[in-house]
């Protein structure tokens, strides 16, 4: 099927070139908002690229996080930047259209060229037929508790990395919380259209998150993808003007945030105490353990992303007694 191969090849080439071009334009434009929109477009093209590289799990994550949640976070950040710059009269424009390159500006370019040359050399000296670990994983899939190799690697064989990622996300939120209270946005009350849209879409988003969580055991999906869709649901509600009740922002919020990394750490400690290696799951219970870990991780990731959007500690946050 020559025509099919030719079309696939053209598609891939256009996609690759498009990615490079959009990346360049994202970094090279002076208007911040244009940069954000181009970044969202870049995330979109990147998700298509992952699809063409046979990685639907990553494409799911890129679609949810890169194109969706990050776009919303960047726009909120831009709004805050504009508000603080209004007094100075600028409006989201980064100056420096200057084309006089000082000598010190060439040093980063040289370093980047050296790094690029090193990467190219490393890439070209790889064996042409890369075997990878696919065969190994497939051989041990039956003791991992799931039938999706990506989930098996993320949650079982390399669970340690996932544990650290959850902690990183948590620490990021702590960093944002240390900056101060939630920013008062002062936006107007949502009209009926936004209200209805949020009321319809938020449950759909939660359902899709649950679906992605469940399907991650045997098809592309999993905790990070489900968590980011859940975070998008939180974002949508926050944008439509909803705020959690005051009594929910103290202990319940903190419990939800800690549930994911906390459960992971607890399981890790238990596996150490029972004499196995760190995070080595007994094959009989591996499936259940993975489901529990993924469920708490989804909750934590979703709540963390929504909390990041607020930009600070929640407004009605009471000090814990």
């Amino acid at each position: 099927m020559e025509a099919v191969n030719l079309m696939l090849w053209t598609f891939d080439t256009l996609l690759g070139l498009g990615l490079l071009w959009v990346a360049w334009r994202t970094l090279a434009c002076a208007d911040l908002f244009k940069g954000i929109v181009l970044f969202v477009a870049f995330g979109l093209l990147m998700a298509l690229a992952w699809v063409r590289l046979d990685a639907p799990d990553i494409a799911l994550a890129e679609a949810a996080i890169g194109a969706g949640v990050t776009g919303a976070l960047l726009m909120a950040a831009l709004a805050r930047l504009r508000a603080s710059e209004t007094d100075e009269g600028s409006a989201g424009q980064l100056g420096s259209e200057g084309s006089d390159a000082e000598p010190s500006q060439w040093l980063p370019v040289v370093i980047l060229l050296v790094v690029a040359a090193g990467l190219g050399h490393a890439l070209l000296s790889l064996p042409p037929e890369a075997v990878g670990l696919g065969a190994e994983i497939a051989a041990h899939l039956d003791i991992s508790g799931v039938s999706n190799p990506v989930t098996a690697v993320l949650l079982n064989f390399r669970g340690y990395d996932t544990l650290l990622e959850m902690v990183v996300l948590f620490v990021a939120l702590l960093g944002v919380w240390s900056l101060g209270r939630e920013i008062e946005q002062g936006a107007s009350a949502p009209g009926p259209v936004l209200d209805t849209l949020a009321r319809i879409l938020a449950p759909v988003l939660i359902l899709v998150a649950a679906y992605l969580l469940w399907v991650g055991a045997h098809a592309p999906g999993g905790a990070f993808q489900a968590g980011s869709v859940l975070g998008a649901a939180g974002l949508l509600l926050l944008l439509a003007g909803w705020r959690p009740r005051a009594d929910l922002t103290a202990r319940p919020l903190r419990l939800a945030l800690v549930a994911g990394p906390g459960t992971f750490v607890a399981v890790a400690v238990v596996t150490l105490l029972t004499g196995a290696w760190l995070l080595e799951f007994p094959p009989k219970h591996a499936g259940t353990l993975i489901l529990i870990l993924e469920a708490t991780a989804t909750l934590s990731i979703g709540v963390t992303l929504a909390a990041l959007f607020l930009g600070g500690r929640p407004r009605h946050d009471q000090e814990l007694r």
Partner: protein
Amino acid sequence: MMPSDCISAALLIAGGIFFLAGTFGLLRFPDVYTRLHALTKADNVGLGLMVAGLALQAESWAVVGKLLLIWLLVLLAGASVAHLVAGQALRTGTRPWKR
């Protein structure tokens, strides 16, 4: 080719034409409101025809259901976002294009 294949192909190509029309409108129309109009045509009719063409080729009713769900969500989101953008544009003073 089987007749369902022919119908699918026709629906898909028709959907593609509407996508082309949407892009063309986005590039050529004179202001935000008219561009919104072009955009939602690609959303509704373009994607709808494509979903119809793909549904004929689907291997199970579950797939048809998922395709329909995707189209309905795009419809809902597209229409609401168009309303929100147009409303906000009016409130912040963007004047509709007059000849």
